[in-house]
Structures are given as C-alpha cells and as structure tokens.
C-alpha cells in the first residue's frame, strides 16, 4: 500500500483560480504557540487536504478561518482581496462555513427547520412552512441528497445529519467549506455518497478544506494536501507527486517505515468463546440485531472484527461483556463455561472492554487521570470498604509510565488530555486488571499517527503476554495489519472468517456487504490490489 502514489488517476475536476488564502497566520495561547506563520490557499472547486497529528493546529486554523478565534498575526484573502474575519457572523457573511466533527443539529426539529435555523422563511409574522420546505427540497435536490425535509433530525443517521449540515452551509451561500474529519464515523457506502456530494459542490465552484486522519481517502478527492506539525506549516504537495510514506514522514517529522509494527505471535488454545449469541433489535423486535452462532479468540491472538458501521459488531461484544442483556448466550473462558450478566462479572473473570467512544462511555472526563485508571481496579484497592490511596497512586503511576501517558500529573483532569493520551488512560484501566481477554472497539479512532503506532505496539505486547484480544475496527488497513484472524459481521451475523495474512481489503468489504465467498462468487475488483492478492 505504502509504495503506491496517492493519485488514483481518475479524472480531476478542473480547479479554477484562487478563492481563498491565509497568509502568515500565527496564534498563541498562554504558554503555547498553537500556530506559527501558517499559510494555506484554496482554489475555486478545489478540495484541499489538511493533515497533521492531533494538536498540530488544524482545529485552531479552522477556528481562525471561521472567526471563532482571532489570529495574532497574518491576513486572510478572498479572491485576492484582504478581509477581516473577526466574528462567526462575519465569516458567515463572507461565505465561510465549517462542518464540525460533532454535528450541531437540533434533534427535535425537522430537516427544513434545521437548514433554516435562525433565519426562517416568513410571510408576515408567521413562519411560511411550505416555502421553507420547498426551498430546503431545492437545496437538497441540487446536492443530490434524498432526505425528506419533514424528517426529524434525531431520526437521521450520522451520515444524513452531516448532509443536512452541508445543505445548511450551502443555503447560506457558503463558498468556502471546511470539513473536519467528515468520514470518521461513516460507512464505506456513506463515504461514497459524501464524495458524490463533494463532487457536486466542486462543480459549483465551492472551495473546500478537508481535514482527515485517513490518508487513503485524500487520494480520492484531493489534488493538493497541506501538512501542519506542532503549529508549524510544513508544506503543500500535489498528491500525485508524493507517496504515502513521504506524506506520513511530513506529518510525524520522522521517516516511518511501516504503519504497523512487525510482529510474530505465539497463539495458544481458545481463551474466550461465545456461542448462540442472540439479541433482538431495539427498534424492530422482529429481527435480531445480534445473531452469532460461534465466535472465539485464542490466547495470544488478535481477532479482528470487521463490518460496516451498524452491522452489530459493537452490540455482539457488549453482549459478551454483559453490558447489554442477550436473549441467549453461552460463554466459555479457557474451556470452562461461565455466566456473565453484568460488566462487573465480566471484569471479575478478567475480561476488559475499551469502548468505541472514549468520551461518551469510556472515561469520566471530569475526573483525574489516576481516578480513571483505577476505576475498574477499586475492588482491589479497598480494605474494609476504604480505599488505599497510596496503592492507587502507585498503580496509576506504574501504568502511566508503562503506557507513556503524556500528562502533567496524575491529578490532571482527563478532559484536557489529547485523544491519544485519553485512549492510553482507557487501556491502562484495563491493563492494571491483568485482563485475560480484552475487547477493544475502534482502538485508534481520532488519534494521531504517532499515538496509533504506540497503541499497536501495546496490543502486540499484550498478545505476547498471552492476552486474547478482540479488536473491532472500521479501518481495514488496521484490521489487516494487526489481526491474526478476521471475522466479518453482516447484519448481526458472522458472514465469513479470513486469515489476516492472506485477506485483502476487497474480500472484507465483499463479506461486509453481505456476499459470501464460499458461494463461489468472485470478489468485485475494486482496484489492482485484489487482482494481485487472489
């Protein structure tokens, strides 16, 4: 993968003259220089990639673009004319909009209400609903988005909400759009839809800044990419002139030979096995959300669990961990049947579960690092119901060092750590329990390249120690690079098992889409890679 240049050779929409330019932008916060002399230019109809590790300054740059922050120095030009973006309102007037990672729709309002929020269509003192819906419909149609304008926002999928956000920006006549990790939570199919919408926007001459951690996808839609590191502007390159390795090198500031640490694993007997796991769909009781006959992981093995978002990967593992109740489930740990009805019981059996969304259900963000590390360890710190604080501090310090968590102190509130360090705190919480089996859901979502590598190394160390690891991931290179064996989930069922060493991304996608390799249908050829692999 690494040797292949990014540019896929598909026809590029012709990009016009310069639309937007930032020049020499600097911004300091107390004690930190967040941006130092950064420049960036976007042409009409261009999608300009912006990459960098977490904390490199991408978000700060976006916030300066959209008037949330004021730059200490530097100038913004639109179509060559200098402008001042001193408020979000001014940014809106100038046609600059941003689609944030956390979407900002009002869940109880309709799509049309959300698109025109704050500036409803009126006739006299009354809101003209019919005109508003008609206008919303026109905007959605223009973008090729088939969502009913009367749908209430909370019923939309993440991808649909994002589309509504984009429609909202377009309804404000935005010409410059910043997309902050738009594909982070989308399925492959939804990504294709998003890219189609982006294509429509390009044809309309909208210039876009596209932030992403997924370097692969930049090749599909960007012509140029700019790199930031530690607030410094590293450079802008045409993707067709640069390899993945060179790009990663620019991002991390050191040559990176491989994204995944090489590793030989010693695989033992079956450690954790689940049979007959069934759970009904909450929204539709007539179907099963989880319907797995058998899934197992051996000691010292990493089992990759692939599948589309919403296929039921997380739900299966929540049943195994006792976080959700299953209609039926049989569990065996090291060959002995066990009953697990709650997370507490799973933990007592030395099973750990690092959740998909750290901020939502993995960490207590308002509490400090030590507290979070010891959260699942409390029973063993307690003597007659009281906590031995010194032992707690020792335990937390030991795992802070082992995992190289970057924090000013164990008393630091976890909210203030970067994504990678938060993930390490989550891992520390489970490691200190000497887990026998670890379920880890999206281990590297939203964390930067350097921290990713560290997490991978840590998983390898764990498997060396004989821990059985179940890794759910939506990043196919990660599944292939880290797992020994891959199961692919489709609509709550295991739709195939692959040897990670020989599997290809296409095979996984094929199984994830519900096809079955055993029926003799060949995998559809998505690129030259599958041909080479078969």
């Amino acid at each position: 993968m690494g040797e292949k240049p990014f540019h896929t050779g598909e026809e590029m929409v012709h990009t016009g003259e310069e639309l937007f330019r930032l020049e020499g932008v600097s911004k300091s916060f107390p004690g930190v220089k967040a941006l130092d002399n950064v420049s960036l230019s976007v042409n009409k109809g261009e999608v300009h990639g912006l990459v960098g590790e977490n904390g490199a300054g991408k978000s700060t740059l976006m916030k300066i673009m959209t008037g949330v922050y004021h730059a200490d120095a530097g100038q913004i030009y639109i179509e060559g004319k200098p402008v001042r973006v001193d408020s979000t309102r001014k940014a809106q007037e100038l046609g600059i909009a941003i689609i944030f990672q956390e979407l900002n729709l009002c869940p109880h309002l309709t799509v049309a209400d959300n698109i025109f929020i704050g500036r409803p269509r009126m006739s006299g003192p009354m809101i003209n609903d019919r005109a508003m819906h008609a206008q919303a419909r026109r905007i959605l149609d223009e973008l090729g988005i088939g969502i009913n304008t009367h749908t209430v926002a909370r019923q939309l999928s993440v991808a649909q909400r994002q589309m509504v956000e984009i429609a909202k920006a377009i309804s404000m006549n935005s010409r410059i759009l910043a997309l902050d990790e738009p594909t982070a939570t989308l399925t492959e199919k939804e990504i294709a839809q998003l890219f189609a919408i982006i294509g429509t926007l390009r044809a309309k001459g909208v210039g876009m800044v596209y932030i992403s951690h997924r370097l692969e996808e930049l090749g599909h839609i960007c012509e140029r990419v700019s790199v930031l590191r530690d607030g410094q502007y590293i450079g802008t390159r045409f993707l067709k002139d640069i390899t993945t390795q060179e790009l990663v090198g620019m991002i991390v500031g050191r040559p990176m030979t491989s994204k995944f640490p090489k590793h030989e694993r010693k695989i033992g007997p079956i450690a954790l096995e689940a049979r007959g796991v069934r759970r009904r769909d909450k929204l539709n009781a007539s179907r099963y959300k989880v319907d797995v006959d058998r899934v197992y992981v051996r000691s010292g093995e990493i089992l990759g669990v692939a599948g589309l978002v919403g296929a039921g990967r997380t739900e299966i593992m929540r049943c195994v961990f006792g976080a959700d109740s299953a209609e039926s489930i049989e569990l065996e740990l090291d060959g002995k049947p066990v009953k697990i009805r709650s997370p507490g019981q799973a933990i007592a059996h030395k099973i750990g579960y690092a959740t998909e969304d750290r901020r939502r259900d993995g960490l207590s963000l308002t509490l400090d690092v030590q507290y979070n590390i010891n959260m699942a360890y409390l029973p063993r710190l307690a003597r007659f119901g009281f906590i031995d604080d010194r032992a707690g501090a020792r335990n937390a310090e030991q795992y802070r060092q082992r995992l190289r968590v970057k924090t000013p102190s164990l008393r630091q509130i976890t909210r203030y750590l970067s994504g990678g360090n938060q993930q390490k705190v989550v891992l520390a919480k489970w490691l200190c329990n000497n887990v026998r089996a670890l379920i880890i859901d999206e281990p590297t979502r939203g964390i930067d390249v350097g921290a990713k590598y560290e997490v991978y190394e840590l998983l390898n160390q764990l498997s060396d120690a004989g821990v059985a690891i179940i890794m759910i991931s939506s990043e196919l290179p990660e599944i292939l690079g880290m797992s020994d064996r891959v199961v692919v989930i489709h609509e709550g069922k295991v739709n195939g098992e692959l040897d990670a060493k020989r599997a290809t991304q296409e095979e996984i996608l094929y199984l994830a889409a519900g096809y079955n390799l055993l029926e003799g249908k060949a995998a559809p050829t998505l690129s030259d890679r599958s041909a080479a692999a078969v």
Partner: protein
Amino acid sequence: MNASINAGQPRTGSFSNLSVATKKAMLSGSVLALLYAVFAISNRQFLGRGNQINMLQQIVTYSIIGYGLTFCLICGGTDLSAGSSMALAGIMVVWMLRVGVPIWVAIPLALSMGILTGILNGFTIEILGVVPFIATLGTQWVYRGLANVLINGNPIYTRDIPSQAAQDAFYVLGGGRTSFWLPYSVIITFVYGGLLALVLSKSKVGRQIYACGSNPEAARLSGINTVGTRMFAYCVSGFSAALCGILVSSRLSSAQPTAGTGYELEAIAAAVLGGVSVNGGEGSILNAMIGALIMGVLRNGLNLFRVNSFWQQAIVGFILVGACAIEARRHRQSA
C-alpha cells in the same frame, strides 16, 4: 505533542493540581471569611458568645440535610423529599416516645425510617426509572402526607412523654450543651460531617458515587454497580434527614408535620454555594459545610442588622443565582 496537552488549558502548577472541589472550597471559604470579617467589624453583637452559638445551632439543619444532598448531587441525582423525611422522622420519634418506646429503640427506629425513605426514593428512580427530580417531588408529598396522617395534622409535644427521664434524655440531644456552652447538636453536625467526608473521599462506595455522577455509562462498563451506588446515596440522604428531624424535634421539644418545609431547597442552595456541582461528579462534604456556614453567617448577620426576613430571602436568592452563574461560566470555559 506538548501543544496537544496544554493547548488552551490551565497551565500546570501546584494550584492547578488541586481538585476542582478543593479549589471551589478555597474560593467559597474565602467568601465565608470575608463575610464573617465584615459582620464582625461592623456589628458588636456578632462576635458575642450567645450569638455565635446561636448561629452554629441554626446551621445544623442546612448542614446535615446538605450532606445527604451532596451525596445525591455528586452521583447525578437530587432529593427533594429530604424536608419531608425530616418531618416524618421527627414525628415518629416523638410519637414513639409518647407511647412509651424506650429512647434507645425509638431513635434507631426513626433513623431506619430515614433509610427506608431513601430506599423508596432509590427504588422509584433506579428500578421504576422515574427521573430523580419528579420521583422525589412525588415522595416529598408521600412522606409529608404520612407525617400528617400519623398525628392527624396537629403538632405533638415532648411534655406528653410519660417518663420525665425520657423527656430529659431526649432534650439533651438537640437542646443540650457541653460545659463550655457548645450545643451537642453542633458537635454531632461536625462529627457526622467528618464521618461522611471520610466515606465520600476514602471509601470504595464514595469513589463509585463520583464515577456515577461523572459518567454513568463509563462507570457501569468499569464494573461499578451503579444502581446500588445511587441507592446508597439516597439512603445517606434519607438517614441525614432523619437525624436532622430528631435533633430539631429534640431542640424544639415538639414535632410538627410542617417541619422542614423547603429545607431541601435551602440545603441544595447551601451545597451549591459551597461548590458542589449540580451537574454531578464534583463536590465534597467540605463544600457543603462551607456553604451551610455562608448561609448561616449571612442570615445571622442580616438579622443583626435588622434586615427584614423577606429581604433576606431575596438576598439569599440573588447570591445563589450569582454563584450558579459563576459556576456556569466556568463550565462553558472548560467545555
């Protein structure tokens, strides 16, 4: 990478290493000291022994109910039934003494009654799934109603207790003083507070209460029994209310079905003034104690200046809203 840790966040120093609750305790502690100093300088009577002891006695109720509410608030709930539980326990204890139950049975029974109200609150919230605000608003009426039913809506007096020895023994709890004039109830307030502070900060269930309030789902997935933990918090609140009810009826030598009306709100106000977060996950018994002292000093000082009680109400309300506004601002900044 360092930038990612520190960007826009408080710089690291010895001060920022303190927990938020401690920082807030320091802040509200200095407000308390300031108030105290202002009243001490501007009014001769304020520092008099009689007035000081009176003031301490007044804060007994806010503090003890406030401790219980602090447990509830930290674990992300609330308990609006505390004032009613207090009345119920106060009536129960006097009623039992009147029918001749010995004091060493009557008091534990009344305290158990408090725990029972906590269990019922916990059951309504955790098992029936009613939101804490509504659940305890409902049980507030239930307990108040039961208190009325028990004595037909009329106050009962300890002078009707048949045994004079029991009358005297009961009075000592809330009305008695040590040889150096310090009321036993004040000593009980501080000792009980210290005990609860120990439970909250050093015990396993104390840690779990913080975890439940900060992020319930993360707590559950970390193997914490969140239902049991919150049940415990409601029981502490019920127990505290009962203790308070016993002390008050002892001091007043009577029990009234209307006792403690609105005390839960004053206690919440005191706890929040002291720095307990209404959003859960933050606070300490020290916060509740300081908050109660601020309320007490303020009320007492305003009394000495003959500010009428309606104005007092308005002033306390203003201060509470102001304190919450400061808290909200802090939340916005850190979000």
